[in-house]
């Protein structure tokens, strides 16, 4: 299922098909040399978008993808290598493999399936790692698979050249493969999984808090990208006719990553732009490498010019365009920037049916020697607004983080009705009707406002009616006019509203708001209060509100809980709290007279 409008997808797919067909026709007209350059370009491009499917959407740079290219190349080659040559050069192959000799197409399909299987196993293991640990582990993967290719001599000929592979990759088979890869990569980017993964890339904690299971989405993209790498590997092996493990190691990793980074990791447009830029530069430099003469001046051969050239482009790109030449948007997203007017049909929001209160007992959070929250018991009912106040550092946000599954409590339990919620992770809690916003805004800044909210709707309550839920939430928070702007470009107050809209799209029965009025002026705060009242009155949502604006708290809340140094020091109606000596002391210091 796709999350982006047809006005984006159709031009994009058409452009891919037309560009590849035109380029292929042009190259055929120009002759064999151009055909070969274009064939290599297409095969490299498959690998570049393959890497982009994972690295671009997840934000985790992978150095290990060439391993999958290698696995695909060797698997396919073992299947297509003429049987007599196999007997001569790989005498220790098992009989069934030694006698197998099939065409490039079935061999590629089998190679892709085998690679997918390997990628799945590796992906499950690597999925536990985050950030730079994940990147470094992909480097380990590259080295390990390289070691296996060298060490498994009976099957791969070790570090010797694996030669005699039938040279069956033609310009058109590479073109069709490339078309297939680009379209898959483009569709994946805007699929439900792709959108969720991109939300996770933008902000992992927030994505999890709106129900996204980041690890699962990473695994999906990892496996898909491995399949594309395997296709690229099978095609390059049958283009060159000879491969060695070196082909799938650092040099080519560097070359393909350079294409991806120079063009821009996060889009298919970027992958194509980078591949074109690097290919043009290397083809030009490679011709000069053997020496040339200009106007009587003879330039001697300088080998290595190509690598220096690529290094220079990377430096240039990083200085001038750190997000890549194509930036963060697909070309069609720029050209058709406002594809459809959002139309809000009849409000589909229904009053929440979940009337069970959230009951937390003995919540405690220790960070090393510091006890941030100490034995706090609290309850929150749908339909009420509860204020949570206290001086800075009193544990309000920590308590909220525990109740939303962002932090695992050191001790204490919370449940709704029969169901124990403590121990569940963030995205599981989001799916059980508890949504939240963050003290320091955690939007997905490079996604549009609409996508920010849509991803929440898609990832909770089974994604039912997601588009309508997203639109309704945007409408309710008054930010529907910004639907197609990037969330990161909005004003502070609007970003806060989008964050609440995103939480509402999860159809929560309980909503945790961490300083929603911070940075808002009086009018904006008043309108926010009005909105929150409507939420409780019309939809029966319970709100847990942390804020320093005591006027807001006093006017809005049915009950107020006060934390000081991790302890719950008071709980009651606003007027009770105003007159509570412990609260006054916590805020104003002990009475000296």
């Amino acid at each position, binding site marked *: 299922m796709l999350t982006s409008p047809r006005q984006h997808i159709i031009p994009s797919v058409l452009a891919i098909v037309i560009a590849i067909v035109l380029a292929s026709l042009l190259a055929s007209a120009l002759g064999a040399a151009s055909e070969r350059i274009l064939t290599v370009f297409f095969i490299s491009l498959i690998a570049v978008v393959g890497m982009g499917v994972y690295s671009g959407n997840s934000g985790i740079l992978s150095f290990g993808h060439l391993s999958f290219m290698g696995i695909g190349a060797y698997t396919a080659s073992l299947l297509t290598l003429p049987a007599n040559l196999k007997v001569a*050069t790989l005498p220790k192959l098992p009989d069934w493999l030694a006698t197998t000799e099939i065409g490039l197409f079935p061999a590629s399909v089998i190679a892709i399936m085998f690679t997918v299987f390997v990628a799945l196993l590796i992906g499950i293991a690597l999925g536990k790692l985050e950030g730079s640990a994940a990147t470094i582990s992909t480097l380990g993967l590259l080295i390990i698979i390289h070691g296996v290719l060298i060490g498994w001599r009976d099957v791969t000929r070790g*570090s*010797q050249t694996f030669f*005699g592979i039938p040279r069956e990759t033609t310009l058109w088979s590479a073109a069709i493969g490339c078309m297939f890869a680009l379209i898959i990569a483009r569709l994946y980017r805007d699929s439900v999984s792709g959108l969720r993964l991109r939300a996770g890339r933008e902000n992992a904690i927030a994505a999890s808090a709106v129900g996204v299971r980041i690890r699962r989405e990473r695994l999906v993209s990892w496996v898909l990208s491995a399949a594309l790498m395997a296709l690229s590997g099978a095609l390059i092996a049958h283009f*060159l006719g*000879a491969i*060695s493990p*070196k082909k799938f190691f650092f040099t080519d990793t560097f070359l393909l990553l350079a294409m991806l980074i120079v063009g821009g990791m996060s889009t298919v447009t970027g992958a194509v732009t980078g591949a074109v830029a690097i290919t043009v530069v290397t083809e030009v430099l490679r011709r000069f490498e*053997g020496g040339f003469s200009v106007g009587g001046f003879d330039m001697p051969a300088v080998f290595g010019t190509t690598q220096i050239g690529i290094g220079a482009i990377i430096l240039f790109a990083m200085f001038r365009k750190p997000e890549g030449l194509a930036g963060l948007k697909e070309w069609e997203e720029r050209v058709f920037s406002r594809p459809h007017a959002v139309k809000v049909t009849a409000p589909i929001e229904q009053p929440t049916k979940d009337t069970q209160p959230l009951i937390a007992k003995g919540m405690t959070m220790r960070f090393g020697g510091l006890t941030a929250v100490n034995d706090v018991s609290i309850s929150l009912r749908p339909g009420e607004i509860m204020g949570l106040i206290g001086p800075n550092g009193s544990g309000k946000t920590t308590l909220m983080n525990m109740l939303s599954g962002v932090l695992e409590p050191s001790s204490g339990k919370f449940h709704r009705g029969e169901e124990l919620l403590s121990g569940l992770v963030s995205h599981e809690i989001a799916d059980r009707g508890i949504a939240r916003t963050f003290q320091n805004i955690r939007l997905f800044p490079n996604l549009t406002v609409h996508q920010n909210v849509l991803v929440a709707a898609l990832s909770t309550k089974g994604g039912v009616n997601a588009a309508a839920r997203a639109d309704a939430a945007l409408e309710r928070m008054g930010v529907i006019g910004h639907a197609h702007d990037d969330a990161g470009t909005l004003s502070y107050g609007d970003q806060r509203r989008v964050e609440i809209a995103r939480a509402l799209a999860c159809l929560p029965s309980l909503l945790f708001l961490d300083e929603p009025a911070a940075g808002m002026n009086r009018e904006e705060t008043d309108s926010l209060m009005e909105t929150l009242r409507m939420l409780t009155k019309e939809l029966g949502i319970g709100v847990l509100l942390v804020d320093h604006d005591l006027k807001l708290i006093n006017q809005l809340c049915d009950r107020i809980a006060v934390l000081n140094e991790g302890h719950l020091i008071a709980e009651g109606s606003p007027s009770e709290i105003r007159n509570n000596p412990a609260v006054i002391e916590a805020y104003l210091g002990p009475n000296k007279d």
Partner: protein
Amino acid sequence: MKKFLLISTMLGAAAFSMPAAAETLRIGLATAQSGGLAGYDSPVVEGFHIAVDEINAAGGIGGNVMIELIEKDVRSDAAQTSIAAQELVDEGVSVLILPCDADPALAAIGIVSSAEIPAISTCASSPTLPMIGGEYMFANFPGDNVQATVSASWAYEQGHTSAYIVYSPDTQYTTMPLYFSEVFEKLGGTMLGQDTHSIGQQDFSAIATRIAALSPQPDVIMTSSYEPDFPSMLKALRAAGVTSQVIGSDGIDSPTTFSLGDVGEGVVFTTAGHATEGSPLAAFNAKYEQITGNPSETVFNAVGYDLVKVLEAAVIAAGGSTDPKELRDAIANLENVQGATSLITYKGTDGMPVREVTLIRVKDGARELVGQPSPDASLIPAPRMQ
């Protein structure tokens, strides 16, 4: 339109009225100018240039066929060799020169056989290269099996009766010791064992310890490993107290081997030639020093010169033709071409030339000629993938 016609007629007339251009032999060099094989291909190409400049200065091959070179760096990589070979074929070369090792050279076999252009590896010595490469693939160096026969026979004649081999299965060249052990046993010697390593391994202490623990010690240790492995291996062996005669092969015919000091003393290896006084190699070395200002430090300079001499002889034998098929047939029938290192014969071989094998000993940091024996043909093992 009239103007266009006029111009094209003039151009056409001009083309016809030009004197028939002299024939040009286009040679495509896809060699390793960077990476692990650059240490061999660079000196070969240097010697190659000396010969080409010499011939062109004299008016070309046979006085009328000028040589044109198109050069590409394949970075010691199989895939790059395949790409570069294809590009050179596209550019219409008559002969392809491929890298110094059988492995990258084999990467080009598909291209070479479908384009039907003769290809010669600069200095690959694996006899399997022309065997698998087909009728268009040639080598330019004494074969591994021939070198091993020469060194094994020499060792046995010296009274050495036991041997140990250290080889790397990473390339065909580094498996030469397997040929050695076959010949050595055929002669009546005893193999005490073998070890394998990977190329670029650096640390040979485990292998050295294992050999040092043997009792009795092997008389001979044979390897065809080269830089950077060979110096590390030799140092480790000597450090472990192993004093056996070490025998190497052409891969260690480099300045490094002669600058190892005491460790390197006494090492014997097979190579492609030796500059005895008055020999063609001495003449080449003098020419090399005159042109470059430096003495030639490796026989691979001369091997590059040989290669051009072979091509020159082939063009002359083909009656001045530069047609690839005619050149292939001419190369395959060459006999006793005088190169800088030795006489070179392809006739009657499958593409692995018959050339002189020289045994060199490292003495006082310099070359000492041990001999240039002709191997007993009945001892030479059949080429095989191993």
